[in-house]
């Protein structure tokens, strides 16, 4: 039992306990995603059909590797928050919700670890 009034609690962080932080981070990453994923699409078009040496050479460029890393980080933070919103909208049973939100975080981290390690390895020349 808290002695704080409901109004005082809501003023801080609201019902989600996270305040507007997720909302804001979703917008921030959405804005960042526009140039980053445009770069990704253009890169894939430019190197589609390229052989192994050409592609690894391109991904070995430090600037390309750094941007690719940002594509992954911004994209994954954005998609994790986005999926959390979807889960919270449709899954109302408390245990199932917690379990799926946990899986959401695990999936994001696994994809992130794989992609980032690959990008860094390629960045250092394969």
């Amino acid at each position: 039992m808290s002695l704080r009034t409901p109004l005082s609690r809501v003023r801080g962080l609201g019902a989600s306990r996270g305040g507007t932080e997720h909302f804001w981070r979703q917008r921030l990453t959405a804005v960042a995603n526009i140039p980053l994923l445009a770069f990704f699409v253009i890169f894939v078009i430019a190197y589609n059909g390229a052989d192994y040496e050409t592609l690894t050479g391109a991904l070995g460029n430090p600037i390309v590797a750094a941007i690719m890393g940002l594509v992954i980080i911004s994209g994954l933070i954005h998609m994790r928050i986005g999926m959390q919103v979807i889960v919270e909208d449709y899954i109302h049973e408390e245990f199932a919700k917690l379990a799926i939100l946990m899986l959401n975080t695990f999936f994001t981290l696994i994809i992130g670890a794989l992609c980032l390690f690959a990008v860094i390895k390629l960045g250092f020349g394969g």
Partner: protein
Amino acid sequence: MAEVSKSRPISPHLTIYRFKPTMWMSIVHRITGGALYFGTILMAWWLVATASGEESFNTMNAVYGSIVGQIVLFGYTWALLHHMMGGIRHLVWDTIHAIEKEQSTRLAQATLVASVCLTLLVWIIGYIVR
């Protein structure tokens, strides 16, 4: 407090609204977002296979170059570009622009037209430079 939180409204009440372009595009934005979520597996395989050496790179290339692979990648391209257009629309709305009935409807239609045109453009250029 407990009773209050039990009876509070939950979203989204899809069944009580008449379907309109803005509503369709809202649903499609969510579906494409969800598709892109799992689509990151495609990106991960592309990077991991390339980083693992020439042999795994060739396997990945053969799968992505197959008919089924190309269809999946075409769908992924559209989902990404449509979600991007829809996202820009959301960001425009966040600045309190184009939220009037006619404008928002036109913007919703524009996102679909733009995403289809861009997807075709990307694939046409992709096949030309290949």
